[in-house]
């Protein structure tokens, strides 16, 4: 199998690890680009925050996790979900707002999650991911499972009080959790240099968390730094903080009216250092059969996304009466339109 490419001394990581990272990134890129097209054409509804350009963070961090390790994510979560193993078909059906989607049509883009594969929650409240991640970490510690939890949040989210106090609580309880700040330079149109008086990772150290800033375009660097943090967590040495510098090609949200606050020079710098391209360069130089592998991996990604889109298009609309279901897990409580429980 191509994944088991023979290790090469010039490779920074084993070849199959690198190919795996590329595969994840290729899937995320293909998924996001297709979503962008479908939204632009008016086919997909939603309030969408894409992560094209940021693939190395999701892929690099999550490659260090097991299925039992939990993540929590943000409004910009498609990449995290795909990397953690949420089914792209179920995700796309959800984005189409059809029946059978990952969230039964109740969640949409900002709320994609699947606890069954270790994706606890995403959501539209900036900063909420950090407190939530403490829970599975606490559970893992108490049960001694060795599992870890990862909270993703943005450079904007790093300013939110909930994230800051979660860092302290994680340190107080010495929890196996990794805080991953995806610093894509902006929170909407506000730059991180304005919004954060000190670099987010520098601040984590003041809370007693080992902290690192890495090049978030370089999946190998992200993977290695995440490995150190995850290892610390698994070894019982408590929480860490990882800041990854990256960039969102599609801006803050799909349909954003004015993007002129983004300097073209900055964007093209990042595009030159595109995460897929950087890894492609590494693999091209080092794996003799890389071009073949790459074609296959790219094709597979495209096929997966094609299949997901087909599934989304083919899925039926949800029954409007299902608005009322799922408010409570308790099967004895059913909601009628006035909010009354009917048994």
């Amino acid at each position, binding site marked *: 199998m191509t994944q088991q490419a023979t290790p090469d001394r010039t490779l920074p990581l084993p070849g199959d690890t690198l190919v795996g990272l590329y595969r994840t990134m290729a899937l995320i890129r293909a998924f996001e680009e297709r979503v962008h097209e479908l939204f632009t054409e008016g086919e997909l509804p939603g309030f969408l925050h894409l992560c094209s350009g940021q693939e190395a963070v999701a892929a690099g961090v999550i490659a260090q996790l097991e299925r039992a390790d939990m993540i929590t994510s943000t409004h910009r979560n498609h990449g995290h979900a795909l990397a953690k193993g949420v089914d792209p078909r179920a995700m796309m059906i959800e984005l189409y707002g059809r029946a059978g989607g990952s969230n039964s049509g*109740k969640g949409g883009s900002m709320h994609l999650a699947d606890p069954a594969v270790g994706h606890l929650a995403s959501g539209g409240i900036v900063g909420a991911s950090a*407190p939530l991640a403490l829970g599975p970490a606490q559970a893992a510690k108490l049960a001694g499972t060795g599992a870890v939890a990862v909270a993703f949040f943005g450079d904007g989210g790093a300013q939110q009080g909930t994230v800051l106090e979660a860092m302290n609580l994680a340190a*107080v309880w010495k929890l196996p959790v990794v805080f991953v700040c995806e610093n894509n330079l902006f929170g909407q149109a506000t730059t991180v240099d304005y919004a954060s008086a000190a670099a987010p990772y520098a601040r984590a150290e003041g809370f007693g968390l080992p902290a690192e800033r890495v090049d978030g375009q370089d999946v190998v660097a992200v993977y290695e730094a995440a490995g150190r943090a995850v290892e610390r967590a698994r070894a019982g040495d408590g929480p860490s903080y990882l800041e990854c510098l990256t960039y969102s090609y599609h801006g803050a949200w799909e349909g954003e009216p004015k993007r002129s606050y983004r300097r073209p020079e900055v964007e093209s710098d990042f595009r030159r250092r595109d995460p897929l391209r950087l890894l492609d360069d590494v693999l091209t130089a080092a794996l003799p059969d890389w071009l073949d592998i790459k074609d296959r991996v790219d094709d597979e990604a495209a096929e997966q996304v094609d299949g997901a889109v087909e599934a989304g298009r083919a899925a039926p609309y949800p029954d409007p009466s299902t608005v009322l279901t799922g408010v409570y897990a308790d099967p004895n409580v059913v909601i009628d339109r006035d909010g*009354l429980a009917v048994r």
Partner: protein
Amino acid sequence: MKTLSFADAINEALRLEMTRDPRVLVTGEDVSGGATIPGFERADAWGGVFGVTRGLVAEFGRDRVIDTPISESAFIGAAIGAAAAGYRTVTELQFLDFMGVCLDQIINQAAKLRYARGDRAPGVPIVIRAMIGAGSRAGSTQSQSHYSSVAHFPGLKVVVPATPADAKGLMIAAIRDEDPVLFLENKALYETKGPVPDGDEPVPIGRARVAREGGDVTIVTIARMLSVAEKAAKELSERGIEAEIIDVRTVAPLDLTTILESVERTGRLVVVDEDTPRCSVASDIVALVSSRAFDRLTAAPRMVTPPHTPVPFAPVLEDAYIPSPEQVVEAVLATAGQEVAA
């Protein structure tokens, strides 16, 4: 049956459920009462401001009775997340007045995660304990009963016990529930003693209790207002009016059926609530009864609540703020077209 205080009844429920289910945790500020101090682990820990969790750390250890920094968003979030990993955390917010620093975790995370993640998603089995109630001369930020604003949000269960027996049974039910439960304790009730069943039978969440039978008027009460209504009912009985008192026990979901059944018979409704009146549980009940049992009502429904103001500090003002039996009597008489004789 034994006699326990309201506070001890909650303590017993916690102890029973922690014994029965090793996944039950207790977290919050000071819940171990100083037991985080090296050398103090098993000593004289009090357990929260009113000692409701006292003794638990000695019995279940610091791994299961866990103090927190004053970081309510962080530790409530942790409770929600731990639920996803199989634990059931009873976490304490101390006073409900503090909800403003962590409400997002309650209303958008705990309450909505189940719905937003779709029909196959697991529930969020956590219990958030918080104190409510005026009368302790604490002023406007540690005396409020603003559960109405939380009961407004879909996805939460909101429990308001009025007796030690219900405090125990509802806590047991809350811990076993698959959904997030806000468990509210009126601090003026903590010392109230009453009969409490042995064993660990839950009191079902979402069922009101007819606390007094009567055919002339339906008085619906929430938490501590039960005793205010009971005093009023005695006085009314002397005037020949027999009040039926319904203690809602749970404000979300609300047991409207029991209320409507009573109003069907009495034709008159008075709701007594310690929360402020606008957009409240009291106005909710009045609205539901008015729209669903309009033809059975023989008089305008009434609410007896505090004024729509913050809780004042001065004893003279605070005493005027809290609904009194006299006000309930007056409201009931008004539904009968009568006035209190001077």
